[in-house]
Structure formats: structure tokens, C-alpha cells
């Protein structure tokens, strides 16, 4: 436990301030100048004499005690260390300078004047070089790392005030792109480490929580990590390059995030409470037609097409604004969270116990997320040769996801303003037309779609120290979860939209994964300068998943939703079950020479049940070298540089993300007139094998000016071969990616190769270190990906919406670019119309209702043939950003602290599908207000032939919205660049202002520390995007179709008030 500071040389009579001042930046100089002047004035008034000084040393603004900090009288060997509570007592002469230091923190100096009791608060240095960090199957000192590893501290996680820990990663780790796919409480997130590494749906990193692997992939818009309480996390390590991740072999292709939870410390039990209350609101509405505008539009439209308006719209000026469905759907929603934690222990046993509660209502009505959790970590030094411990966490989440599951936000935009929410008698209202949009408010509140999940994570470990230098670690972990899904479709009558059929479904799923690992570590220093560490291990893991569903219709009322209340004759039951297994051997060699040259080599072999016996095993080696240049003689006298390290790495990792039994083929069961009928469910591929990724990394770590400036940069090249993909194929192959009746899932295929290259920068600085403390951190991530090979005959993979191609992934191109037609305004008159080429098969200028006409969109003829057809589609933009960044600033002054965190992306494009569906002038219900700008057709000669196309022209030729026509032969709303928008944004993600009450006030009420804060999340977003929120992500985590906005649940702006208490 004891940590001693490195001795610094005696400085003689040189003024003390002088030593620190050398070569520090100007700002530090100025700062020290103020310290100096203060010091001089203190010295002037000082008097000689012995006295006993006492004090307490704390760290950071949470002011936890610093046990074992050094207190030394400057220039002497007189000193002491702080006790477990951070307290010290020392006899000194008045007027001396005492130096307080603690590893990982900036040292402080204090002049002893009249004051004898000191509260010393140390600030972390930016590099944390001596910190011990987790690597796979072991730990390492940060300064000894050879791979690209970045840590996110518990402080960062807490200051982000996220409800889920993957959100806390956003912008804080270079090379990690975090995108929230939904602002729904507990909603989904995509995390990409160093770009898109695979084409199959699972691009999520592997999370290892206290040794238990958990996939971030859910395949829907929920979040696999929402179950974890961020307050329990003590650190997250992101392993980015293959030399760091290869030890995780087959599951590491998308990077690995190691998560460590809080552990106990010896000493008096610490009690802490963190609580917050907040309100959330929608930052922005989308502009839609209000009732007057809607009526006016429908009247104008009826004049053109002859039908579709309503008698009550005859005089729009007497109408009010009508229903604003967005205002009805969104609310100001409360959220609260409470965390209570106890840590403590003695020499034998330490523990950490925590309980948490989170209750977040959604800003869209009828959605919420609740989480309850308890965690207990115990470590016991059982014998001299044995240490035992356990991590246990139980948590439960309760969420209602009706809004997302039924796409009600896009329905709220689509519903028309003439429909009231409720009838005068208080019942739900609805459209006067059976074909109308239902009542999204009623649906959100009355249709049940909820989930409750209980998850138990446990990990039991034993460290056995036998023989000198050998440690054997055995771990057994389990991940047990129970998920209940509740659905109830009520009977209703929303105007003419009726549903007399009730249906309830209850699904119970349970999952049991276990992992058993044993690994032996040999750690030895030889001949002073050589240090060797060797690790060898074996691991077996397996899982089984089961589900049971019961379903009935025919409920007499909507009040009781349980299946038992339904018609017994309508009962349906289903059950499913599947299992998997993975067996692995692995090892690592770490060798260092003279603390200057470091070598790491790892290997891993994985056998997976997902592949046929012939293709089962994959082998994943890695090598890395590091050169600590700052420890070379020629740099030892350069005091400005405290660390300079060059890292080189190479590694191979794998991927196995294909459906179970993809090498074979299962039979699906369909209900028929003749009883059960069986059809093939997927096309088999017995040859499918491991995806493999080779990656190269070069990195440089630089720390300067007594660790006040840290600069890290990494450049990498990753090549993935044998890319696994459930291959989208043409429809004539009888396969279909989306569920359709009697569909056949396409085969899982090793489909090609891609590469990612990129560069990352991290700059952490302490700009001011005195009473006014200011630190900042910048991360910038640049990644480019490119498909280098595809074995599909056409060398590309298309994804579609409504069977229209929307993205293309092709050789030589980045993954998942938008693909479609390029528009060039619209035909303003007959001459323009006839001078162009037109949609294949369409008639031109024969009759306004059925042929291409003035006011239709002009598409560019890119292939130069005589019509607009498939050959004229091209790339319309890349949904992946050119770069992403995070910029964090923390200020502290006296008892105040302020953190402003900004993040953003640049250069990514969004396909605004919401606009495509709601800017259609032939819509039967509500529309975006931009539809008012539809191309209006006027007559050149008002007395001429009104049907003559040469007498017609567009009176507002600058518009982008086409003319009104019933049967649109030009397909004006086809997938084109009209709907592609710039998705760049800069977001003030969080703004936190805190105040810590002076200790002398709080001690009086037996509280060690009280901090209160105000946090505003998503304070403002700078963007040109016209939808709700530019952070779109990948629907259901499918990277081939990312950046498509189909009515994403917007992220709320949150005003939060919170308190941290330590007892």
C-alpha cells in the first residue's frame, strides 16, 4: 500500500519556486509567479519557531482521502505519510516549505505560516503513468503498455451523468465512435472502435465486465449494457489495436472494452450517496402543416386532382391551428437516480457494496426506463498463498418501448392536424377515413409493449501463489438473465380506425452463460535489467438460451392483459432453445530490457461451435514492441520530457458472428390446412469459416512539463479478410433478409475483405494548476474504410428500403454509402422537359395525370443512354464521419467546479427517410410544412389552351418539391439525393457546475463532504440537419444501412440537479 515519492535532488539555496519554473509553458510561469508573490509576502510576515502542523490530504474534486501521501519538508529528509484517512501530523519549524506528493497526482508545496491545519487537495496529473491498468488476463503498469489502450476514469463516467456506460465513452476515447441510435430511455447505442470492422450486423465491441464477456450486440434498438450501473464502474479500458485485443481472439475483431467495478479498501467504512433529479425535454420540433395550412393545401390539391379535400375545409380561415401531434406526443419528463455505496475492510477482507435506483420517463409519452441494482465485491486474503474473491451483481430493468416498436413518432408527424386527440366525451378520437393514420397518442398509452429483465452477473476467483514467481488464477463466472416481454394489443375505435380484436402475448426468455478459465503467470526479474512475464491459460465457455411464449386473442375488456383473461380457444404457444460453446487456449510473453525495450507476444486458439467441425479452430497471434525513448541516456537530462515512448504492434483477431448452425440448414414450421408444414428456413453454407483481421499499429506517447501535458497519437491499418456476412442476394434466389412469409434466410458467407486506416490524437493538458485549476482534453479520431474485395459476382452488396436500393457497399468504396439518383431541380417548362431524358418506360408530355410533365423532378442521366434507369444511380454520400471529436474542459476554483463537454462529428451524411415519406404531396394525411412549396403550374398565356404543355410553366421554379399528381409516372419520391443531408454536428453534450461545501461546515453535521451540482445535457446542438437529431446511428445496429433517419427517438435535453455525499 505504501507509495513513496521519487526523491528529487537537493536544491541548495535556490529559491524553491525556481525548480518548477524551468521550461514550463508561459501560462504555468505566470501561475507560479502569482504563487511566488504570495509566498514572498507570507515569508515576510513569518516568525521563527517549532510547531505541530496537522492536515488532511484529499484528491480531486470529490475529495476522497489520499492514504500514503508523502509530506516532506522541502530540502530535508524530514517527513511523514498520511494515514488511511488521509490525515497527517508533523513537527516543523515555522517558515519552512512542505511538499505534498502522491503518485499519479501533481505535487503541491505549502509555506508554513500561522496556519497549522491544512486541507490539501491534490489534482491528478494527466498521464497516470504509474497507474495499474487492466489488460486481458492480467494487469500492467500504464508505462509498460505496448499496445493502444485508452482508459476512461470513473470521474469521466460520473461527470457525463449517463444512464448507460457506453454513452459515457462518447468522444472521450480517441478511435471510439459512439452513436446513440435512439433517445428512448435505455435505448440502443452503436459503438465502433476504429471504424467498421466487419460487414455483418455485429460491429459492437466485446465488453468484459470483471472477467465476464458480454456482447454489445442486441440486434434491436435496446441496449445490452443498460443493465449496468455506471456509478459502480471504477475504470474502463478500451483495447484498440490487435496487439492488445488478440488475447481475446475470436471475439475481439471489434475491439474490447474491459470494465472494472469498484473494490473495497482497507480502513473505516466509507459511505457515499449520489443522487440527482432532472427534467428532460424535446430540444426541437419538426415543422408540419397546421390545420389552416393543411386545409389550404388539400383544397389546392383537390383543384388539381379532383378529389381528396373535405367540405369543412371550404374556408380555411375559420379553422384554428388544429392538433399539434408532436406537442401531444412529447412531454417534459422527470428522471431521478440514487446510488448508495459502502466500501471498507481490514487487512484480511475488503468489500464494496452498492445499491442503485434509476427512474427515467421518456420525453415521448408512454415510454420509461427503470433500473434497480445491487452489487457486492469481496476480496479475501485467505492464506499466504491464496486469495479468494467474488463479484456479484443483480440488477433489474423495467422499460416500456411501445413508441419505438410501433414507430409512433413518425406516425405523429404523419397524422393530420384536423384529427383531435380526444372526442368531446373524453374517448380517443381518430380519422374519419378507415385508411387514416391511427391515434398515436392513444396507441402510445394503451398499447402495451414492455420488458423486464433481471440479470445476475457473478465471478468467483482464486489466486494461488505457489512456487516463487508463479501465480495461478482460476475464475468461474456466470451471466444469467431472465427477460419477460409483455405485449397487449387492445380493442379500440379511434374514429373510423377500429380494432375489435384484442391480443396478448407474454414471452419469458432465459439465458445462462458460463465461463471457466485458468491461467498461470510467471513473473521474474533476471540479472537486474531483464524482466520476464509469461502467462498460459485455458478457457471454456458455453451458453444456452430458451424462450417460451403464450398468446391469446378475444379479451372481453382491455383492463386485464394477462393471457388467462383471453379466449382459451385462441391459445397459441411457442418455445425456442439454442446453445453455443467456445473453447480456447492462450498465452502471453512480456519481456522488458532495462525499462527501455519492451516486447509483448500473445497467441490464442479458439474453437467455436458456430463452425462445422472442419472449420472449427482459429489461431490468433500478436507481437508488439515499445521503446521508452525517455529512459535513454540522451534524453535523461531533458527535464521537459517526462515520458516519450514509441509503440509498434501487429496482431490478428477473428470474428464468428454468424447465426448458429449456419453451416447447416433448419426447417421452419408453418401452419397450413393440412397441419404443420415444413419449409427450409435458411440456405446452408458448410464452407463458412472464421473472419480474420490483421492489424498494424504505430503509436507515440509523449508527456511533458512534469506530466502537465500529455500527447498520444496512434496510426493504424487494419485488414479484415473472409468477412462474414449473411449475404443479401437478389430476390430470385428465394432468400430475403427481412422477415417475410415463407422467407428463406440467405447463407452466411465469407464475402470479402475490407481495410480501415486511421489516425487518432489525444491531447490532455493542465493549463492552470493553482487555485484556479483548468484542465482540458481533446480527442480526434479519423478513420477511412474501404472494401478491397468482395466475392459476390457483382462485387457489391446493396441494402434497400421498400425493395428500393438505398445503400451500396462496393469494392474500392467505403462501407454503406447512400446510392440513388442525382436530381437537378425540376422541369420548369416544356422545353426543359423535352430536352431531357426520362424514366424508362414512362410516357412524356402526353397527359398531365399519367406522363412525365412540367413540375416533375429532373434526374441526371449518368450513363448517357436514352432513359433514366438503374444505370443512373450513383453514390450520394457516406454516412460515416470524416472525423469525430470530443473536447472536455474542467475548471476548479475554490469550491466550485465546472465541466463543459463538447462532442461532434464532421462530414457524415444522413438519409432523411422521414422527409421522403412526409414531404410527399400525395400523402393522405399530415405532411411536413415544406410541402407547401410544391411546384405550382401556371399558364404562360392565361387565355391559351390550359392542357397544352407548351402553355404551362412552373411559377416557383426554385422549389425542390415536385408537382401534385395522382399516379406519379416520374417516381418523384424515389431514393435520390433530395433526401441526403449533411449530418455534421457540434453538441454541447454536458455542462456541469458543482459546488463543494467547506469541510468545516459539513463536519459539524458529521458529513465528510457535500457537493451539489447542476448538469445540463445536450444543451445545444449546432447542425444543418432538418430532422429531430443528427445522431442517427445504425438501425438495429446494421452498419450496411446506417444514417437512415426513419423517425429516430430524439435525445432529450436534460436539466439535472444532484448531490454527492460522503460520510
Amino acid at each position: 500500500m505504501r507509495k513513496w515519492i521519487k526523491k528529487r535532488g537537493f536544491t541548495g539555496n535556490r529559491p524553491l519556486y525556481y525548480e518548477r519554473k524551468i521550461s514550463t509553458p508561459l501560462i504555468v510561469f505566470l501561475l507560479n509567479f502569482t504563487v511566488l508573490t504570495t509566498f514572498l509576502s507570507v515569508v515576510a510576515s513569518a516568525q521563527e519557531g517549532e510547531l505541530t502542523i496537522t492536515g488532511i490530504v484529499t484528491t480531486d474534486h470529490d475529495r476522497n482521502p489520499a492514504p500514503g501521501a508523502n509530506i516532506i519538508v522541502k530540502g530535508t529528509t524530514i517527513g511523514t505519510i498520511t494515514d488511511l484517512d488521509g490525515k497527517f501530523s508533523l513537527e516543523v519549524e515555522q517558515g519552512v516549505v512542505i511538499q505534498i506528493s502522491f503518485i499519479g497526482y501533481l505535487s503541491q508545496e505549502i509555506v508554513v505560516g500561522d496556519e497549522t491545519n491544512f486541507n490539501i487537495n491534490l489534482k491528478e496529473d494527466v498521464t497516470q503513468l504509474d497507474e495499474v491498468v487492466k489488460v486481458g488476463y492480467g494487469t500492467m503498469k500504464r508505462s509498460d503498455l505496448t499496445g493502444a489502450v485508452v482508459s476512461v476514469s470513473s470521474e469521466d463516467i460520473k461527470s457525463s451523468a449517463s444512464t448507460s456506460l457506453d454513452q459515457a465513452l462518447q468522444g472521450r476515447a480517441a478511435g471510439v465512435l459512439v452513436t446513440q441510435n435512439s433517445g428512448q430511455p435505455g435505448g440502443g447505442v452503436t459503438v465502433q472502435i476504429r471504424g467498421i470492422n466487419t460487414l455483418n450486423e455485429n460491429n459492437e465491441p466485446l465488453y468484459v465486465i470483471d472477467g465476464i464477456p458480454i456482447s454489445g450486440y442486441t440486434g434491436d434498438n435496446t441496449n445490452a449494457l443498460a443493465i449496468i450501473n455506471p456509478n459502480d464502474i471504477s475504470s474502463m479500458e478500451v483495447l484498440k489495436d490487435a496487439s492488445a485485443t488478440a488475447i481475446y481472439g475470436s471475439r475481439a475483431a471489434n475491439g474490447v472494452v474491459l470494465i472494472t467495478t469498484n473494490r473495497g479498501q482497507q480502513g473505516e467504512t466509507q459511505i457515499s450517496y449520489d443522487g440527482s433529479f432532472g427534467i428532460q425535454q424535446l430540444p426541437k420540433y419538426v415543422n408540419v402543416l397546421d390545420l389552416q395550412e393543411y386545409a389550404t393545401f388539400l383544397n389546392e390539391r383537390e383543384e388539381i386532382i379532383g378529389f381528396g379535400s373535405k367540405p369543412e375545409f371550404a374556408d380555411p380561415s375559420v379553422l384554428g391551428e388544429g392538433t399539434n401531434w408532436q406537442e401531444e406526443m412529447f412531454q417534459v419528463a422527470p428522471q431521478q437516480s440514487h446510488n448508495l455505496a459502502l466500501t471498507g475492510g481490514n487487512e484480511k477482507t475488503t468489500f464494496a457494496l452498492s445499491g442503485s435506483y434509476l427512474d427515467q420517463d421518456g420525453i415521448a409519452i408512454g415510454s420509461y426506463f427503470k433500473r434497480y441494482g445491487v452489487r457486492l465485491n469481496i476480496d479475501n486474503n485467505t492464506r499466504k498463498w491464496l486469495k479468494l474473491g467474488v463479484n456479484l451483481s443483480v440488477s433489474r430493468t423495467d422499460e416500456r418501448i411501445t413508441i419505438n416498436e410501433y414507430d409512433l413518432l413518425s406516425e405523429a408527424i404523419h397524422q393530420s392536424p384536423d384529427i383531435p386527440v380526444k372526442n368531446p366525451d373524453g374517448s380517443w378520437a381518430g380519422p374519419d377515413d378507415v385508411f387514416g393514420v391511427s391515434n398515436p397518442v392513444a396507441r402510445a398509452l394503451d398499447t402495451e409493449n414492455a420488458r423486464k429483465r433481471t440479470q445476475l452477473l457473478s465471478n468467483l476467483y482464486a489466486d494461488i501463489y505457489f512456487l516463487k514467481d508463479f501465480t495461478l488464477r482460476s475464475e468461474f463466472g456466470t451471466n444469467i438473465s431472465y427477460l419477460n416481454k409483455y405485449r397487449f394489443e387492445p380493442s379500440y375505435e379511434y374514429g373510423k380506425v377500429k380494432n375489435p380484436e384484442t391480443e396478448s402475448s407474454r414471452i419469458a426468455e432465459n439465458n445462462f452463460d458460463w465461463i471457466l478459465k485458468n491461467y498461470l503467470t510467471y513473473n521474474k526479474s533476471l540479472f537486474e535489467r531483464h524482466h520476464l512475464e509469461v502467462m498460459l491459460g485455458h478457457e471454456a465457455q458455453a451458453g444456452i438460451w430458451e424462450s417460451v411464449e403464450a398468446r391469446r386473442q378475444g379479451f372481453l375488456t382491455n383492463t386485464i392483459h394477462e393471457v388467462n383473461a383471453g379466449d382459451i380457444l385462441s391459445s397459441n404457444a411457442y418455445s425456442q432453445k439454442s446453445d453455443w460453446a467456445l473453447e480456447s487456449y492462450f498465452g502471453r510473453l512480456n519481456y522488458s530490457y532495462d525499462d527501455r525495450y519492451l516486447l509483448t507476444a500473445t497467441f490464442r486458439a479458439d474453437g467455436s461451435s458456430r463452425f462445422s467441425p472442419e472449420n472449427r479452430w482459429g489461431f490468433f497471434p500478436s507481437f508488439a514492441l515499445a521503446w521508452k525513448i525517455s529512459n535513454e541516456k540522451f534524453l535523461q537530462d531533458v527535464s521537459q520530457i517526462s515520458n516519450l515512448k514509441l509503440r509498434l504492434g501487429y496482431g490478428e483477431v477473428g470474428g464468428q458472428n454468424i447465426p448458429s448452425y449456419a453451416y447447416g440448414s433448419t426447417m421452419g414450421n408453418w401452419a397450413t390446412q393440412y397441419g404443420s408444414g415444413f419449409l427450409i428456413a435458411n440456405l446452408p453454407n458448410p464452407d463458412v469459416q472464421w473472419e480474420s483481421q490483421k492489424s498494424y499499429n504505430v503509436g507515440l506517447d509523449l508527456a511533458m512539463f512534469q506530466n502537465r501535458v500529455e500527447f498520444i497519437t496512434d496510426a493504424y491499418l487494419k485488414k479484415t479478410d473472409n468477412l462474414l456476412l449473411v449475404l443479401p442476394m437478389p430476390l430470385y434466389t428465394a432468400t430475403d433478409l427481412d422477415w417475410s412469409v415463407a422467407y428463406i434466410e440467405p447463407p452466411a458467407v465469407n464475402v470479402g475483405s475490407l481495410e480501415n486506416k486511421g489516425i487518432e490524437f489525444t491531447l490532455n493538458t493542465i493549463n492552470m494548476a493553482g487555485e484556479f485549476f483548468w484542465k482540458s482534453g481533446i480527442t480526434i479520431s479519423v478513420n477511412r474504410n474501404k472494401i478491397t474485395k468482395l466475392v459476390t459476382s457483382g462485387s457489391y452488396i446493396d441494402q434497400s428500403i421498400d425493395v428500393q436500393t438505398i445503400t451500396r457497399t462496393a469494392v474500392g468504396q467505403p462501407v454503406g454509402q447512400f446510392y440513388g439518383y442525382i436530381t437537378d431541380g425540376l422541369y420548369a417548362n416544356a422545353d426543359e422537359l423535352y430536352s431531357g431524358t426520362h424514366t424508362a418506360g414512362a410516357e412524356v408530355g402526353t397527359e398531365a395525370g399519367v406522363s412525365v410533365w412540367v413540375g416533375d423532378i429532373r434526374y441526371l442521366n449518368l450513363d448517357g443512354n436514352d432513359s433514366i434507369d438503374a444505370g443512373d444511380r450513383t453514390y450520394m454520400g457516406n454516412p460515416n464521419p470524416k472525423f469525430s471529436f470530443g473536447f472536455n474542459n474542467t475548471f476548479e476554483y475554490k469550491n466550485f467546479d465546472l465541466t463543459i463537454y463538447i462532442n461532434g462529428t464532421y462530414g457524415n451524411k444522413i438519409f432523411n427517410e422521414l422527409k421522403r415519406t412526409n414531404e410527399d404531396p400525395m400523402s393522405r394525411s399530415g405532411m411536413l410544412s415544406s410541402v407547401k412549396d410544391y411546384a405550382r403550374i401556371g399558364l404562360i398565356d392565361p387565355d391559351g389552351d390550359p392542357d397544352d404543355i407548351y402553355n404551362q410553366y412552373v411559377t416557383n421554379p426554385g422549389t425542390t418539391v415536385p408537382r401534385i399528381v395522382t399516379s406519379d409516372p416520374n417516381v418523384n419520391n424515389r431514393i435520390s439525393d433530395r433526401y441526403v443531408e449533411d449530418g455534421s454536428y457540434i453538441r454541447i453534450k454536458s455542462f456541469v457546475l458543482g459546488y463543494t461545501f467547506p469541510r468545516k461546515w459539513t463536519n459539524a453535521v458529521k458529513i465528510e463532504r457535500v457537493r451539489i451540482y447542476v448538469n445540463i445535457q445536450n444543451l445545444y446542438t449546432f447542425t444543418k440537419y432538418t430532422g429531430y437529431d443528427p445522431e442517427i446511428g445504425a438501425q438495429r445496429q446494421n452498419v450496411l444501412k446506417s444514417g437512415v433517419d426513419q423517425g429516430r427517438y430524439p435525445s432529450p435535453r436534460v436539466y439535472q440537479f444532484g448531490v454527492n455525499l460522503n460520510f
Partner: protein
Amino acid sequence: MMKLHTIKNKTIFAFIILTIFSCSKDFLDREPIDALTIDTYYNNYDELRAAVAPMYSTVWFEYNDKGSFSFGDCLGGNMINPWSYEEFVYFTYTSLNNTIATGWASLYRVVGHANIHIVNIMEKSSPSIPEEQKLQVISEARFMRALAYFYLARLWGDVPIITDNIALKDDYIVPLNRAEDVYQYIINDLNFAISNLPDSDPEPGRVTSWTAKALLAKVYLTFSGFNSTEGTRDEAMLDSVIYYAGDVIQNGPYDLMENYPDLFLTKNDNNIESIFAWQWIANNYGDGNSFQAYFAVSSDVTGCEDGWGGSVTATKGLAEMFTASDQIRRKATYMMPNDTFPEIMSSEGGYVHTGEGANIKKYVVGGPEDNDGQVHTMSAGNNTYILRFAELLLIYSEAILGNRASTTDAEAVEAFNRVRQRAGVSTRTSLNFMQIFDEKRRELALEGNTWFEIVSWWYFQPQEALDYIATQNRGRYLPGADEEPSDDYFSPPNSKMQMPYPESEVLQNPLFNEPPVPYDFGE
């Protein structure tokens, strides 16, 4: 002390060795535990029959769901909805059309499932199953494949002939095959089915050799005019039609139902007139017939969430087809104001049609209580006719007429008049092509057939068929409206007579832009 240490170390090493080798060899063998696989299926005759059971319904669902009426009746000029599918009434569809793509996908899904079952039964089924039983089930699958290709050939013309779907994972870029080869492929499948299917089947609705013969007659009649340069049909093929249709009419188990509207009652599924029909059950989405979901006037009629047909009506052109005496079929096809339908909303004394439009009646069967519970949302239990005896009689007459301007052939006239008599309209003594064409349109309106009759005509007299379309009034028929909607006539270009390939297919397979190639039939 030393001793204790040694013991401890030994234990630990033993532990390590144990765990390292603890995974037994089959630890990584995880076959599916909740589903049969193609290697564990096809063990006996019952399993073989269960394999082709969904080929009578499920595999056709998405074609039946929208393609069937969009192509057969919207393109055919019988039905109009100004809000949707109107592109088929107006001939404005393009290769981006969703209905075209799902129809195409659904038909190829039928082909795919049939191919896979055929290959698996031949290669993987238990040797203990008698050969004739295997051949019978393979014949059922080949019948379905033939029917799917028959739709594909008539709608798109040149299409790829797919026989091995599993091999497509290695290369799915396949060429188009010539339409005439597709027809030959269909004829081969049906001949195989005729040879290997029994004359009767204990399960109602299952195909028999009679079913295959009847379909082959229709295929030959259509194919007989294909690529004609003289405006005539191939006489040899017409003879085949007469041979097969005559055989079925004289020797088969079929007859006309007495009362035309009874054909469309759920309880009369697989009646004596039904030669082949898709077999639906009211259950989940995909198991049942979704037709009335789109065409019933309101949810009061269906008693379910659906009933979205408020703005769908017959065209004026279809209405012109029914004379004052031809009201039995008319009333079973579309509704006029004040028409009463006692079989719909029966508990409330029947449905009385109000509103201005001539809404759709055929295949609209009412709610669960009108159908012994055999109706759910988008899933009704009434069958979809693909071929019924009345149509076969007309096929027979048409083949006998052949390339002549008119005929008084007794058999032709008799077959024709049986259909007329059942409808309660006057009989004829001589027949010409147009009379038979119109009779088919009336008899089979809204059964997804009219467009295919036009295509069949267009094969040998393209200009006449195009001219006919130009005379079809496709305006909305609103007999109860204050103001009569306008008449609407459309003259599609010749290129619109075949569907465009879905654009996403052309994007993925550039060979769709190349001319078709002959199919290699092997021997």
C-alpha cells in the same frame, strides 16, 4: 513443511491439467435443439407430405396479398383505387414499384422452396419410403413450380430458370432464359406431375393428375399464341388443349356449382368446381387470405382491424360488362347502393351497401361470426381460386374455336353455355373470340385473371390486344355519387405489356440487361 508444499503443488498441477483437458471432444458440437434440420427430416411419407403442405398456401401468400389483384385486375382494368395500385390502372408503374418486386420475390420463393424440397427428397429422404410416394410428393412440388413459372412467364417474359438455389451462394449472377424455354420447362413439370400424381387424394384440395392436366390445358392455350407472326395460334398446341381439357371435362371429378355466389363462401372451399385453389386458414398473418383486408368497405364488414377498401371500386368498364340480366354474377362481384348481403354481418340482419362507390364484393366474406370463426385480421380462411371448372369449360371452347373467326361446334357451344346458364343469362349458338374473352372477364372478374387473358391475346395479336385496352373505361364507378366521375381511357405502349424487372435485381445482376439465353434442357 517441504512435504506439505509438495502435496499442495501436486494438487494444483493436477488441477491445471484436469481443467485444460476437461472439455470433452463433443463440447463444441451444438446442433439445433429446437428445430428439425434438412438432415433429420424427410424420414417418411407423412413428413414428405408435410413438406409440401405449405406450398398450397404460405409460399403464395405475398403474391396473393397484392400481386394477384394488382396484376390480374388493376392492370386488367376491372378495379380502381385512386390512392394506391392506381399505377397499374394507369400503366405508370416503373421498375421501382414495390408491388412488382414483392410479386416477383414471392413467385421465386415458390420456385426456391419447390427446388429445395425436390432435391432433398431425391437425395436425403429415407430409402424406406416407396418410390411412387416420393414421386407423388415431388410431383406436387413440381406442379407448384410450374404454376409459379407460368405467372413469371406471362408477367415478365424472359426470366431466369432457377433449379438449384443452394448453389446460388457461390454465384448468383445468372442469365435470363427465353420465355419459350420457360414455357417448355413448365410443360415438362406438368407432364411429370400428370404421370406421377394419383387420380384422387384423400385430402381435399391436394393436386391430382386431373389438376395437372387442367393446368396444362391452360398453359398450352396461352403458349399456343406465343411469338406468333401470323396472328394465329399453334394448331398442335390447341389440339393439346382440346385433348387435356376434354379429358378433364369428360372423365374428371369436376362439375359446376349450382349457385354462382356460393362459390365464394368460406364453407364451400374445395367444392366440386374447384380444380385448384390456394388453401388458406384463418390464423396468423401469412396463414390466411388477406384479400378482404384491402377490399372490404370497412372494419364493420370484416369484424377485424382491417377493411381498408372504402375507396376501391369497380371500373366503369367492368360495370359495362354486366347486362341487366347478368346480375347474379354482378352482385357477387361488386356492390351497388342498397344491395343487401345477408351472409355479411349476419347477426345484424346482413350488410346493406350504402355510400357512393361500387365497392368490391368478391372474396369479401365478412367477419368471424359469418364464417364460423374463420376470419382474423388480414387472415381469412376462404380459398383463392386458381383454376375452376367454369374456366376450364371456357378454355375448352376457346381451343375448339382456335384460329377460326367463329364456331358452332356443339361441344364448344355446350361448354360455353353451361357457364352462361349457371349465371342465369341467355345461351348462344355460335361463338367468336371476343364473346369467349368477355365471358371469361365477367365470370372470373376480381379473381386475378383478366390481365393474363389480355397477355395471352397480345402474344398472337399484339395490336388487337392494345386496341382493346384502349377501349376499356378505367374510370371509377360511383353509381351513388352526386356527380359522375370522368371516364378514363389509357393506351399503354407495347413495352408496358410485360413487367419491368425490379430495379434492385437489375442493380445486383447486370445480366438482366443482356439478351436472354436458351435454357439447356440436358437431353
